[in-house]
C-alpha cells in the first residue's frame, strides 16, 4: 500500500501502468482520477493544504481499513497539495482485488472519504478572489452511505 502527498503534478497513466504490472492473481483494478475543473473560468486554481504527518497518517489508516473491509490486494493513493490548475490531477486512487465488486466499492469508499472527511483545507482562486471551501451536502451524503452499510 502506498499513500503519497505531493506538491508536484503527476501523470495518472504512469501510476496505473505500475499498479497493474505483474499481477497474476488480481482480477480487478478500479481507479479514480479527480481533475481540477476550470468551470468556464469560474475556478482559476485550487489550493489544497495538508498537515504533513497528520493528513497522510489519517488517509493511511482509512486505506488500511478498506483493505480489510473489501478484501483488497493493494491500494495506491496519491493526493496533490498546493496550487493545482484546471486539467491537473488532484487525486488518484487505485484498488486491486480478486473481483470487480470489491475493487469498485473500495475505490468509491476511499474517494468519498478523501473528498469529504480527509484532513485537507481547500481554497478556490476564482475571478472574485480566493475563498475557502467546506464539504458539500452531497459529499457528506456520499460519505454517510458507508456508515449505514457498515
Amino acid at each position: 500500500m502506498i499513500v503519497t502527498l505531493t506538491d508536484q503534478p503527476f501523470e495518472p497513466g504512469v501510476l496505473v501502468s505500475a499498479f497493474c504490472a505483474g499481477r497474476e492473481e488480481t482480477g480487478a483494478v478500479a481507479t479514480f482520477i479527480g481533475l481540477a475543473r476550470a468551470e468556464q473560468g469560474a475556478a482559476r486554481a485550487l489550493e489544497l493544504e495538508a498537515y504533513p504527518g497528520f493528513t497522510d497518517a489519517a488517509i493511511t489508516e482509512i486505506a488500511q481499513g478498506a483493505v480489510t473491509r473489501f478484501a483488497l490486494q493493494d491500494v495506491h493513493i496519491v493526493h496533490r497539495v498546493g496550487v493545482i490548475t484546471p486539467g491537473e490531477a488532484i487525486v488518484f486512487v487505485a484498488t486491486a482485488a480478486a473481483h470487480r465488486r470489491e475493487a469498485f466499492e473500495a475505490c468509491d469508499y476511499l474517494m468519498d472519504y478523501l473528498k469529504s472527511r480527509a484532513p485537507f483545507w481547500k481554497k478556490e482562486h476564482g475571478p472574485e478572489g480566493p475563498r475557502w471551501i467546506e464539504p458539500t451536502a452531497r459529499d457528506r451524503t456520499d460519505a454517510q452511505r458507508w456508515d449505514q452499510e457498515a
Partner: protein
Amino acid sequence: MARVLLFGRLADQAGWREREIEAADLSTLRASLSQADPVLGEALAGPGVQVAVDKTIVRGEAALSAASEVAFLPPMSGG
C-alpha cells in the same frame, strides 16, 4: 515553548502559520493566543475547530512540553 501551527482560514485570519509559544498546557496557550489576537482567539474556539497535539486530536485540556506541536484545524474540506 510549544510549536503552534495554524491551518486553512485560521492561518489567513492570523497572518501566520507557525510560531513558537511558551505554554504549559492548552488552556494557557489559548489564553496567550487570545491576549495577543482576540479575533484569532475567538476563531480558535469556534465551532468545528479541532486541536491536535503531536498529530493526535485532543479534546479538552492537555499538558504541553517544550517539544509539543499544537495544530489548530478548522473544519476539514476534504481534497
